[in-house]
């Protein structure tokens, strides 16, 4: 079997497994785990947004929770205050995240390295405290709860996310769509231009790339990913809360992305999966599960700079090249 065929079959098996989750998982683990997997899918988009910036453009953002929060509140305010139906509220969440990313990006991408990291944190903190304060609109710490409008209506019958299987596939569809879009972007001229800027921004501008505009484009795209993530999470949890805009959340996404493997498409998904599973499995038995999270993160940063996906690739390299050479 060639290396390509091997990787394709692994991927196909994984895709089938994801599609079968609503039937397999309740049988063996209980239906609770279906929603854990749904949650992993949602959060992996937030990690993907960190990865798009850090892994492909070289900008480390500690403020992606801001756009996650805008996605959440777009949905929450849309449904609870504006009385929007399902799809307009979903769209409002994504559009507000993109708009916020555009506004803050105009300032943030003038900076790089630690200055960029700091300004992204500052932006997210400003809006975190603002949203805590304007309680009538945001509900502050408590957030706003809402009941879900139907997703589809066919005459008398309504399809809502209350149906766990439908909810799972709804989330799986949008998360897959986002990863597919990102895959397309990475392989495109735009993707190569972003990587060129990540590698050497002076050289990039000397070959004719407008580094400012391209960084801004990437920043808005990352805002889109975080926004979809937040909007899905609001629909999934039926509520929106300012507490998800805290930099703690941004920081977690950075750790997930790095441990999974920055600069790889599926690294963020792997990282998010590992950490959420660790949390769900261990936190019920042992109070200090964050200790394990910390140890994993430190070991990965020290010994596997490309994360778990990088380790996996090295392994596959060894197996296939070892066989030939």
């Amino acid at each position, binding site marked *: 079997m060639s290396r390509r065929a091997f990787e394709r079959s692994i991927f196909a098996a994984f895709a089938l497994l994801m599609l079968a989750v609503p039937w397999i998982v309740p049988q063996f683990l209980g239906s609770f785990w279906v929603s854990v997997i749904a949650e992993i899918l949602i959060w992996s988009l937030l990690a993907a947004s960190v990865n798009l910036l850090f892994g492909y453009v070289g900008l480390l953002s500690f403020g992606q929770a801001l756009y996650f929060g805008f996605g959440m509140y777009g949905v929450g305010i849309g449904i609870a205050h504006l009385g929007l139906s399902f799809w307009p509220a979903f769209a409002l969440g994504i559009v507000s995240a993109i708009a916020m990313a555009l506004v803050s990006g105009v300032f943030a991408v003038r900076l790089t390295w630690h200055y960029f990291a700091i300004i992204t944190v500052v932006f997210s903190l400003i809006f975190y405290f603002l949203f805590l304060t304007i309680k009538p609109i945001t509900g502050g710490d408590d957030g706003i709860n809402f009941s879900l409008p139907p997703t589809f209506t066919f005459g008398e019958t309504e399809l809502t996310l209350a149906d766990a299987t439908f909810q799972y596939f709804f989330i799986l569809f949008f998360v897959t769509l986002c990863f597919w*879009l990102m895959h*397309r*972007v990475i*392989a*495109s*001229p*735009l*993707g*190569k*231009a972003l*990587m*060129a800027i*990540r*590698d*050497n921004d*002076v*050289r*990039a*501008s*000397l*070959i*004719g*790339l*407008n*580094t400012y505009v*391209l960084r801004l484009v990437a920043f808005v795209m990352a805002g889109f990913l975080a926004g979809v993530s937040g909007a899905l999470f609001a629909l999934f949890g039926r509520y929106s809360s300012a507490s998800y805009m805290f930099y703690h959340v941004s920081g977690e996404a950075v750790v997930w992305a790095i441990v999974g493997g920055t*600069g790889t498409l599926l690294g963020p998904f792997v990282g998010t999966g590992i950490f959420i599973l660790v949390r769900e499995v261990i936190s019920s038995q042992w109070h200090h599960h964050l200790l394990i999270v910390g140890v994993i993160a430190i070991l990965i940063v020290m010994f596997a700079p490309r994360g778990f996906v990088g380790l996996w690739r090295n392994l596959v390299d060894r197996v296939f090249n070892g066989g030939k050479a």
Partner: protein
Amino acid sequence: MSDAVLRTEGLTKRFGGLVAVDGVDLEFETGRVHAIIGPNGAGKTTFFNVVSGMHAADAGRVFFAGQDITGLKPHQISRRGIKRTMQIKSVFPNMSVEDNLWITAKAGQGFLHPFRPAAKFTGIREKVERTLEQVGLSAVAGQVAGTLAYGNMALLEIGMALISEPKLLLLDEPICGMSPVETENTVQKIRALSRQVDIIIIEHDMEVVFGIADDITVMAQGAVLARGTPQAIGADERVREAYLGRAGDDALDEDEPHA
């Protein structure tokens, strides 16, 4: 005047109290290979940095093919056709050799399609393959650029300059740090290039300079000390004194003259 590919008027760049480039008026005729020489700290690289837009000039103007390009951003100047290499090798280290060339060829073309796979741009693919052959890097096309041997990295830089179809090429010490074989190889590439494109080269290796330049400009302390053909410069007393050194005639063979 219309046949000057590059012209500067009173170009000045200060760093604090230091005047790195001091009111330089220069005209580079098209169709000739120009070399800029001068002791370390003479302002040669700063001159390139100002021309290519990496530093903003404090005073003076730059004209490229008759058009004022003073104050434009590096990517704007690059898109007009001035390409440069860096003194310290500068490529995209985590991308493959072919991707380095690919993005360089694409960068100047404006719109970067966000969803069309890069592999489908067959015109650029072919250009990349031709350039790989031209600079002799076909064998390492898939290798990550950061892991190339030094000489190959320099060739990649020249390949990147080539594939971007420059009108004017600024080469900043292209052979610095190369072995004699690599030097010979690169000098031939530059000579071949000079038939298609205007070149201004900064170089310390006098053998190389006197071998390929049609015109030499000598800079010292931010200003132009002398200009002329290699013969005239070689015979110029002021140049000998300021630059070629007091060591005598064999200074011509020295790699790194002392200021």
